[in-house]
């Protein structure tokens, strides 16, 4: 294998450092920087710079613009940034949630979405959500908020290790009804219902959900209009 094939061993710290330097230089230079400019800026041999740029493009950390000479950060960088951000919820939104919590005897939770994951933004202290964040993200197909995320995606398989049978029909139902549910799927004794919150431009940004015991699934379903109204109030506060 030639080095260009990506077979870097851990014994080549220089190569790894150079690749990260190139990535940083592209990030700082902004959209449209050329390979030559990067090489000049870093004082790096041009052949090395070009090879590293091609490797980074191959892995999606950066992209080559349609003119083929300019570069920009690519979609893979989103994975790094998404992992680093923490959800923050403004006081006005917390007030809306607190109001809803007073009126029902179920857990009321606010979730945010990154492009590929679910994040707990504000959990009910009295009735906590049935699973923590990492479990939700490993089993997106089994939880109500996860189903909302999957229903948005063209390529569902990319987010799942295995596609359970019947998921496609479930996701179609989610898209039509405008809410998602789970009963006993995440944990045998729990049920949830989640309603999407969208920004004015349309993308899914968050979800407000209710959790209860599995046998209360029927009662939860009746709360959908309440949740939808709450989502409508939260939308301008979050997006």
């Amino acid at each position, binding site marked *: 294998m*030639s080095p*260009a*094939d*990506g077979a870097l061993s851990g014994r080549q710290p220089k190569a790894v450092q150079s690749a990260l330097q190139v990535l940083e230089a592209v990030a700082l230079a*902004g*959209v449209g920087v*050329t*390979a*030559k400019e990067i090489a000049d800026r870093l004082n790096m041999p*041009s*052949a090395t710079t*070009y090879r590293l740029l*091609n490797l980074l*493009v*191959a892995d999606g950390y950066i*992209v*080559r*613009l*349609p*003119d*083929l*000479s300019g570069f*920009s*950060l*690519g*979609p893979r*960088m*989103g994975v790094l*940034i*998404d992992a680093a*951000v923490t*959800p923050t919820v403004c006081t006005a939104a917390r007030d809306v949630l607190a109001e809803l919590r007073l009126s029902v005897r179920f857990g009321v939770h606010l979730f*945010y*979405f*990154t*492009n590929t994951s679910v994040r707990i933004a504000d959990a009910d202290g009295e009735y906590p959500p049935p699973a923590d964040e990492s479990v939700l993200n490993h089993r997106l197909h089994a939880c109500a908020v996860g189903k909302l*995320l999957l229903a*948005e*995606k*063209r390529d569902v398989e990319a987010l799942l290790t295995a596609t359970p049978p019947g998921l496609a029909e479930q996701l179609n139902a989610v898209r039509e009804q405008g809410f998602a549910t789970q009963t006993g799927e995440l944990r045998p004794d729990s049920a949830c219902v989640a309603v999407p919150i969208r*920004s004015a431009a349309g*993308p*899914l*940004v*968050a979800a407000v959900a209710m959790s209860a015991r599995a046998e209360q699934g029927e009662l939860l379903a009746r709360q959908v209009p309440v949740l939808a109204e709450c989502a409508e109030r939260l939308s301008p506060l979050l997006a």
Partner: protein
Amino acid sequence: MRSSSPVSGLRRAQLSFTQVLGQSVSAVAPSAVMVTLPALVIPAAGRWALAAFVVTALLMTAVGYCVSQFATRMVAVSGLYSYTVKGLGPVPGIAAGWSVVIGYAAAAMASVLGAGSYLSALLGRMGIPDGAVTIAAMAVVVGAVALTLMVRGVRLSAKTSLTVEVFAIVVAAAVLVIAFTTIVAGGHDPPKTTAPETHSALGFALLLAITSYVGFESAGTVAREAQRPFVTVPRAIRWTPVALGVLYTFAAAMQSTGTIRAGIGSVPIVLTLPASAGAGATALSIVMELGITASWFACVIGSTTALSRTLFAMGREGVVTERIGRAHRRYRTPHVALCVAMPIIVAVPVGYLFIAGSSRDVMLGLLALSAHGYVGAYLLVCLATPAFLHRIGELTRTPLLIGITTAVLMIAIIVWAALTVDSPVWIATVVYAALLTTGLALFALRRRAVPDLAQRVGVFDETVAGDVFADYNPWEVRK
């Protein structure tokens, strides 16, 4: 920047590295070459036959290096065509485009005929009369099966052709080893080449050997449909010539140990096994015919896949009618391009066969024509490499040197071959020139209808607005 790719409609991330490699390998049909070509090259090159295969392997590896310069930088659907446009501009690009179209189409035609002939030869062993009618019928069957597979999805056809080709290579290697080691073990005379030792045809032999590699660049046409295209496609293009070089050198070495000659029967250019191969000769022949049928069939799929993607891109650009650039809604394959190309691919060799009478002549004619197309396009893409890298500001010494040296060597070999050859290859040259001129004339004509055509040619799967990471909001879900 566009919001959607100009080649959208073809499904992304379908082919694994092995399948991308399979596309390149099956378009070459190496096992058919292994048992036929050394038989043609050895008489022409004499004791230089092995060297001819080694030298051409190196030369094609250099071409592969040039092509991979493009493949690591753009995700193409039309391979050499879009590469040359990006390097040399629209008119040389169009010349390269029609060249590869001629190359792929003629290779597919020869393969349909090859598969048809071998199938009818196999049927002949079961008592069904072997003749032009049977060959034509079998060619239609082969075309129909291949078309169905390719329309149904690139993954299905890639899997099929890869499996079939692996079978074919194993069979060819095994047959060669068994047939020719038996002779040596049997204590026959040491090898004697019957060809005169004048090397007057060495130039032609080199060109023949080059034609045994053509098609290896076709991975560039499935880049949009490959997983991790910037890694898998250049790797396939870089390693295929090396692997083929090893296979061919092995085949040539095996065959130069025995007395060999090209068969002149009803079956086109097939190696006739020495009678001394023993009582198993008939069984070996049957196995080999099966293997070669498989190889030709894989080559039909490989060449037509590459052809259809190139035509699809031309349809998207407006070089040919926009209808050719449509993709199937469900299977996401260029079904219109496939359905237009396949009947022609079957009809031309069948029609030619009824006129010429000998499938061997038809086959050689088509292969010669296809070789012209490929070699023309290779030459252009080698010249395009330094030009392209210079244009995007990434030219370094190695690609400049390799690009120019390879182009010069190829021109030298073509001229040498033209001086030493005394065969009817000139007819193929005339047909190629006529077709290429027609293609360029068509481009000039279409330019009147589509004023910005020169800017539109050379489409590839370019970065779209959604892929560029600017004004990023982590808190939203994208499609």
